[in-house]
């Protein structure tokens, strides 16, 4: 079949999947007074359309920040504004100031869903296709497989089309950044990443690899000649694009207010049950109660910094593309596991680079992506998304199993050969049995399946209402720690003498 036809079939499959998931419920559906993320996005449309820019981030009589105040960077606000203009044409009630609070109707749901659909198509899906079909140097079959897997990855679909958010936009911009880097368009890549960062501040998880990669590239060109020029150009691009995004907010008062809204440091080290170290540790020790807020901040900052140092140094010294992607995975996992006030949805930031590794490390990437979807189970259950969760997860497993990932378990397939060789220098008998990973994988998938069924069907004992979400979090956290180590090993033992992809 021609590549073009195959591409359209995959695209249509991905879009069908997205729209069918979007028929389900969304976060906070019919739950006054606060509703959920869906209402937050609608409220932002109301705010941005009706209030002058100066008031968007300020608490005024028309803008109660306690009720879903805008706490995303300016690009999200602009996007809301554009959506609001469309909404105004269709039905002005959807965004009328004050009176539209908690507005819910079938038409409005359709409208909101289609805004995600359009944004996804323009930013994320187009990037996936570009990446999959133009940059991948692998065989046609592998390309098709990779793009298909990326498009049916359940985590992103469930959060964007079920729960309701626009993660596809920020992730899409990041992906465009990665694509630009592959073409050695460093300025364009920086611009794309600045856009991502200005859409969602969580993209900071990805910022260190971007920074280190560009820094490393400049160093490798010679810091006194071309490298310096490149660095200056990049710095100028970043500052200029930042300034452009923040144009209406360029007074000291505004900037500080926006920053305060973006980084609410007074909200504690974790909020809901989330699969990171702090939440899992609190099973043993109630961190929130024992340590003061300031110490929590410092502790998490130190832990995060320590955990990202190795991969960042390696990337700065050897700035190649594969290392860049490994580093993106490592850093986002580090931030997810160790940083302050993490949301369960932030695992999507780690999922993006892992998606790009699906052809390299098929088994481990599949495993991670399944685990990441599983880690959001408590949230999905709260939103009434059990059915799409089960179906899309099974679909993803089905798609990945077609490329027989279960047989790719040798040291070479796992890309652990260099690592094993260096270990054998000290422990000569060291060896990874061929079936080991496969069996652990199956065991883990079965555990996740059982926990999913249990969380969905059983009521927890009355003394421990959070038992199942906590179990899910701890199990996922163990998984993520394991993947964090794995990808760090991969990055560290990655052969560096290879010629870089141009």
């Amino acid at each position, binding site marked *: *079949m021609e590549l073009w*036809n195959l591409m359209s079939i995959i695209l*249509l499959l991905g879009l069908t999947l997205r729209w*069918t998931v979007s028929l*389900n419920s969304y976060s906070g559906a019919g739950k006054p007074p606060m509703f959920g993320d869906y209402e937050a996005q609608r409220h932002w449309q109301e705010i941005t359309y009706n209030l002058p820019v100066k008031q968007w981030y300020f608490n005024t009589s028309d803008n109660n920040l306690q009720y879903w105040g805008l706490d995303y960077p300016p690009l999200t606000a602009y996007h809301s504004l554009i959506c609001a203009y469309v909404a105004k044409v269709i039905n002005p009630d959807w965004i009328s100031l004050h009176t539209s609070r908690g507005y819910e109707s079938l038409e409005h749901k359709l409208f909101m869903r289609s805004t995600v659909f359009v944004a996804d198509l323009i930013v994320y899906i187009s990037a996936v296709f570009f990446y999959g079909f133009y940059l991948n140097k692998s065989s046609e079959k592998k390309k098709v497989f990779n793009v298909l897997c990326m498009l049916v990855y359940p985590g992103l679909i469930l959060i964007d089309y079920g729960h309701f958010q626009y993660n596809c936009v920020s992730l899409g911009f990041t992906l465009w950044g990665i694509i630009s880097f592959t073409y050695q368009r460093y300025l364009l890549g920086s611009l794309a990443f600045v856009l991502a960062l200005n859409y969602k501040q969580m993209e900071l998880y990805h910022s260190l690899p971007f920074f280190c990669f560009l820094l490393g590239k400049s160093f490798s060109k010679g810091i006194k000649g071309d490298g310096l020029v490149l660095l200056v150009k990049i710095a100028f691009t970043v500052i200029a694009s930042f300034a452009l995004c923040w144009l209406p907010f360029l007074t000291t008062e505004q900037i500080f207010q926006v920053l305060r809204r973006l980084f609410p440091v007074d909200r504690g080290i974790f909020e809901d049950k989330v699969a990171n170290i702090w939440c899992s540790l609190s099973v043993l020790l109630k961190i929130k109660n024992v340590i003061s807020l300031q110490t929590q901040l410092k502790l998490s900052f130190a832990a995060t910094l320590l955990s990202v140092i190795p991969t960042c140094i390696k990337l700065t010294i050897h700035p190649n593309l594969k290392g860049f992607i490994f580093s993106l995975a490592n850093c986002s996992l580090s931030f997810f596991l160790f940083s302050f006030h993490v949301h369960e949805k932030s695992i999507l930031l780690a999922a993006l680079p892992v998606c790009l590794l699906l052809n390299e490390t098929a088994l481990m990437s599949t495993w991670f992506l399944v685990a990441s979807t599983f880690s959001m189970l408590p949230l999905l259950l709260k939103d009434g998304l059990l*059915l799409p969760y089960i*179906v*899309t997860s099974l*679909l993803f497993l*089905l798609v990945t199993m077609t490329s027989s990932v279960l047989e790719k378990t040798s040291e070479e397939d796992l890309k652990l050969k260099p690592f094993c060789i260096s270990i054998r220098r000290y422990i000569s008998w060291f060896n990874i049995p061929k079936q080991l990973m496969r069996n652990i994988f199956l065991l883990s998938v079965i555990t996740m399946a059982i926990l999913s069924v249990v969380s969905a069907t059983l009521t927890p004992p009355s003394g421990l209402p959070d038992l199942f979400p906590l179990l899910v979090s701890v199990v996922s956290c163990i998984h993520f720690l394991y993947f964090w180590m794995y990808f760090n090993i991969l990055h560290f033992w990655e052969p560096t003498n290879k010629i870089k992809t141009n």
Partner: protein
Amino acid sequence: ANKVIFLTVMAASRVEDWKWFLVLAAGVSLLKCLLIPTYHSTDFEVHRNWLAITHSLPISQWYYEDTSEWTLDYPPLFAWFEYLLSQIGRYFDKEMLAVQNLNYGSTATIIFQRLTVIFTDILFMYAARECCRCIPEKKDGKELFKRPAFVLAVLLLWNFGLLIVDHIHFQYNGFLFGLLLLSVARLFQNRNLESALLFTILLNFKHIFLYVAPAYGIYLLRSYCFTSSKPDGSLKWSTFSFLRLASLGLIVCSVFAVSFGPFIAMGQLPQVLSRLFPFKRGLCHAYWAPNFWALYNVIDKALSVIGLKCGLLNIESIPKASMTGGLVQEFQHTVLPSVSPLITLICTFISIMPAVCCLWLKHRGPYGFLHCLILCALGSFLFGWHVHEKAILIAILPLSLLAVKGKKEAGIFLVLSTTGHLSLFPLLFTAQELPIKILLMLLFTVYSFSALRDLFREDRLLSWLEVLYLCGLIPLGIFCELFYPLTPWKERFPFLPLLLTSVYCALGVMQSWLKLYILLLNESATVKPKKDQ
């Protein structure tokens, strides 16, 4: 000769790995699960009501009960099928099994009913697999995506019409078509008696398949009861086997006896038959099927408008009944003669006669039978009384088997499936299902075009006129689905999109029918003693 084909196919399939088939089947099943929350039509309530009737009433009242307007109007085996389902349904929600609970639709009920459709589709999948095994593989061992069996599996399992009619609109066509395809596959495998049994069972599930019964009757009589043909394929009277005829008769009669026997014993046969064949309904179904009568009605309307303009008709002489209020009602023609059920019956009979005769005169093996079956389905679709647009699937699904056999058949399949599927669009009219039907339709169409083109390594399966016609479907679809609902005419002429779709698609269906007929006549004229194909 059939035996040889059969044996080689068997040998090939044993070696084959059917993993890919399972992947396709599992994939589409998961998609079906995702469609659970979509809109469902009144057919959902129809089947819930039947569950309730069969569960809570004695058999003697099944065909008399009329609390709901959706009375039981399928043959007895289907009623028993609903009875079986209701035994499981008890554990989901008892309330849905009460006859008085009209329009009951709790979440448990919806999930239960949707799941019954998804699970009974397993029979369809099995039948599709059996059909794939009947397809002779091409000699050069090619990659999976270019194998006829793979293409056929996708065309059957991922059929757009079946997906939206069963899993969105809500009906149980999947397992019924499973029975049909399985009986076709059994004919291919030379298991004639089994095929007859399956088809008779199918008839007792849903009597709409009576339309294709002539093909079965004639084929079995001709190719099974007569044990061999002359070298040129014509009939050899001396080889008639009475034993075979008797065993066929026994099978058919015993199935009917099991199904209708109890009702005959209770003296309810006239009542059951009056439920099964409600001739009081109108010539055209609420949503016009794209058939001959759609064209006929439009020509009549056009003539009456012209007649009024020219003063040849006066207004008093025109009956008031509007053409398509969207109701199941009788429609009186103004200029052209009105059509009675008898006339449609005669037209249908005439339309399928040549095909049946060909089947009798020339022995062409199971492919000849399949060809005739499709012509019967199309003939009755085009000329039948009160035809549902969904009935086009009776032609499209079996035609998939022919499509992977030859270029010409593939071309016909593309025209018929595209127009037939597009004519199903009005079934789903809610905004949230609009993207789904467009996406799924595109998915199936893009796949069938590219896969069939690959299969025959041919760029032009269609003539330029056909391409032009099919391209015309795009603006038609955009106009009817996206543009028209936004215009003020929507209130005044709500039926206009339906009418346009039906008339435009009717042309394509008619053309496919004619081409298929020409193909049959050509092949019958040039038929030679069969060797391996």
